[in-house]
């Protein structure tokens, strides 16, 4: 191809020259990036719970009771509903932490965070009380396949909550020490996702373990 020969293949486009790349560096959206990563963790965690619910489904046939307690004996819908109210109240209190974070009110945010923590602790206390009662009434996890998976579902959810409560304690001190810095803000936002998500999982624990057990 001879140089200088114009084949008409490189006509400039009409209008402004298109911008194909940024000429300078810019700040990245750290918070969104990390929150999406945390959200993907939450979705993988939902697969863990899916596996547990699947096992619960399989181990709910009468053969798996091994002559021991049945779902009707271990899960009281009324007590479960009281637990539901307590947990959702803790979730609501954490929502108010976010409202005060948005308005940059440090002290009210710490107050709501403490409330969310105390109510969350109350929920765990209720669960411990309930499980102690079940164990005392002849339903420890080793009694039957059904009881093993019942304990597994409730305890794994409870461990998630305990970790969330520990996270709240840490955030309480970080807010007190640093205020609402970028790091503290995104951690509080991720904790919100985590805490709300535990409430969402409880919806299924309550419906398919507690309510279904008494049908």
């Amino acid at each position, binding site marked *: 191809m001879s140089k200088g020969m114009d084949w008409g293949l490189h006509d400039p486009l009409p209008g402004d020259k298109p911008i194909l790349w940024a000429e300078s560096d810019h700040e990245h959206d750290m918070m969104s990036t990390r929150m999406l990563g945390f959200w993907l963790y939450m979705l993988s965690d939902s697969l863990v719970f899916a596996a547990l619910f699947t096992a619960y489904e399989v181990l709910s*046939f009468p053969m798996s009771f091994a002559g021991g307690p049945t779902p009707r004996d271990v899960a009281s819908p009324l007590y479960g509903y009281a637990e539901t109210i307590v947990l959702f109240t803790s979730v609501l209190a954490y*929502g108010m932490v976010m409202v005060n974070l948005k308005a940059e009110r440090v002290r009210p945010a710490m107050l709501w965070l403490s409330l969310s923590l105390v109510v969350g602790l109350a929920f765990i206390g209720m669960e411990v009380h309930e499980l102690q009662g079940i164990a005392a009434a002849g339903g420890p996890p080793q009694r039957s396949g059904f009881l093993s998976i019942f304990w597994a579902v409730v305890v794994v959810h409870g461990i998630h909550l305990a970790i969330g409560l520990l996270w709240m304690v840490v955030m309480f001190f970080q807010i007190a020490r640093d205020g609402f810095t970028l790091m503290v803000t995104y951690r509080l936002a991720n904790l919100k996702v985590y805490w709300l998500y535990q409430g969402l999982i409880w919806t299924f624990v309550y419906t398919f373990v507690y309510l279904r057990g008494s049908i």
Partner: protein
Amino acid sequence: MSVDNTRPSEHPEIAFSNGRSYLIGYVVTLGLLGISLLLVQGHAMSAFNLMASISVIAFLTTIAKLYYLFHLNFSEAQRWNTLTLMLNVPLLILSIGLTAWMFQTLYDRVMMH
């Protein structure tokens, strides 16, 4: 995507926090599960219909939570969270549903009733 990292409280992930919406979510989700409780305690219908009803109510509760508490939608800030959740749902349904179906038929065929 460029952003001003010096004003974290104005970030879109924080901006949608809204007390009224959290309160509505609280009342609606507790109300829905309360209906489930009343249906089950009152033995309002056959076992199969009860099971179907509380499943539908659990689904509605989930939708209410995702809408009022997680604020999931297709806005710029939430688009990928919503999409990844939607892609995750079939995995949950398949893993739980197929296993349940498989064991139900196994049980019917090989166990003495």
